[in-house]
């Protein structure tokens, strides 16, 4: 951890409000993007990302200075996002007539087959984003996290190991399985 980061953490421990604002300004977009890619809904992502920073403010004392502040923040974000995914899945199960796609309708993310015209649209940027986001949403939350961290956020394996607490070999094998699942899913869509 760099000296400036140590100083920032020391100010956070003293609950220095300006230091906290600095952290939100510095890492807000990264945290928001990670949770958005995990949950697929802007409204949920906004809520979770806020919760992440509230947790940071409350539990900065538990931060171990051997880790990087960004990694610690992303670990909190990943845990919050995974918990919310589980919660939303449980809620959908208990809702009469609830389905996975119901919560995504307002994001323009209705079931994929409904508006995919053919394989040639795959690489068109606007639709690619939508299609990929839908595909990610079908993965188990652990696999989803690995795909987002590595292939969307482009973090190193070292950072992913720190965030997930998984051994590097496990990260790599699970990530490969997740990528293969995504590939299969996209192939099925365009059959």
């Amino acid at each position: 951890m760099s000296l400036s980061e140590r100083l920032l953490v020391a100010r956070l421990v003293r609950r220095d409000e300006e230091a906290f604002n600095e952290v939100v300004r510095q890492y807000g977009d990264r945290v928001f993007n990670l949770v958005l890619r995990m949950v697929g809904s802007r409204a949920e992502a906004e809520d979770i990302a806020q919760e992440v920073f509230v947790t940071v403010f409350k539990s900065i004392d538990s931060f171990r200075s051997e880790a990087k502040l960004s990694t610690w923040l992303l670990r909190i974000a990943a845990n919050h996002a995974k918990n919310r995914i589980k919660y939303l899945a449980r809620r959908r199960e208990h809702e009469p007539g609830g389905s996975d796609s119901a919560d995504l309708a307002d994001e323009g993310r209705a079931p994929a087959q409904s508006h995919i015209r053919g394989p040639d649209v795959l690489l068109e940027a606007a639709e690619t984003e939508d299609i990929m986001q839908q595909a990610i949403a079908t993965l188990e939350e652990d696999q989803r996290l690995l795909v987002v961290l590595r292939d969307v956020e482009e973090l190193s394996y070292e950072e992913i190991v720190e965030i997930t607490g998984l051994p590097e070999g496990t990260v790599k094998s699970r990530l490969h399985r997740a990528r293969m699942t995504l590939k299969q899913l996209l192939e099925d869509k365009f059959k």
Partner: protein
Amino acid sequence: MSAADSHTRTVDAFSAYLEGELSPEEKASLEHHLSTCIQCRTSLERFRRTLGGLGMLKQTSAPNSFLEAIQQQIHRRSRGRFFRRRWLLFGRIPFEWLSLAMIVAMLVYYIVVLQSSPTGVKPIP
């Protein structure tokens, strides 16, 4: 090794291959298989496109009101201990208002005190 085993081994190594993590021997063996197997070549191409699609997901920014919303949450949950509202312009010392007040004060002083001073120049009657 059977053809099916060869396909499985190749497909299992796609991630490591694209991330440059195979040993030279493993890489050569995989590329040899790819050169003879159109099924695995197609599969690798689709795998590559899948990763490309993930990489194209754009980075999104947090909403403009993000920081303020978090401050409000902390303020509420700490029962007003943190992030109290301050009577400051844009959250800092209101130098603009201070300057304006000083100018007004100087103007008043000039009009009231200096204009009524006996040393002031009076017109000849």
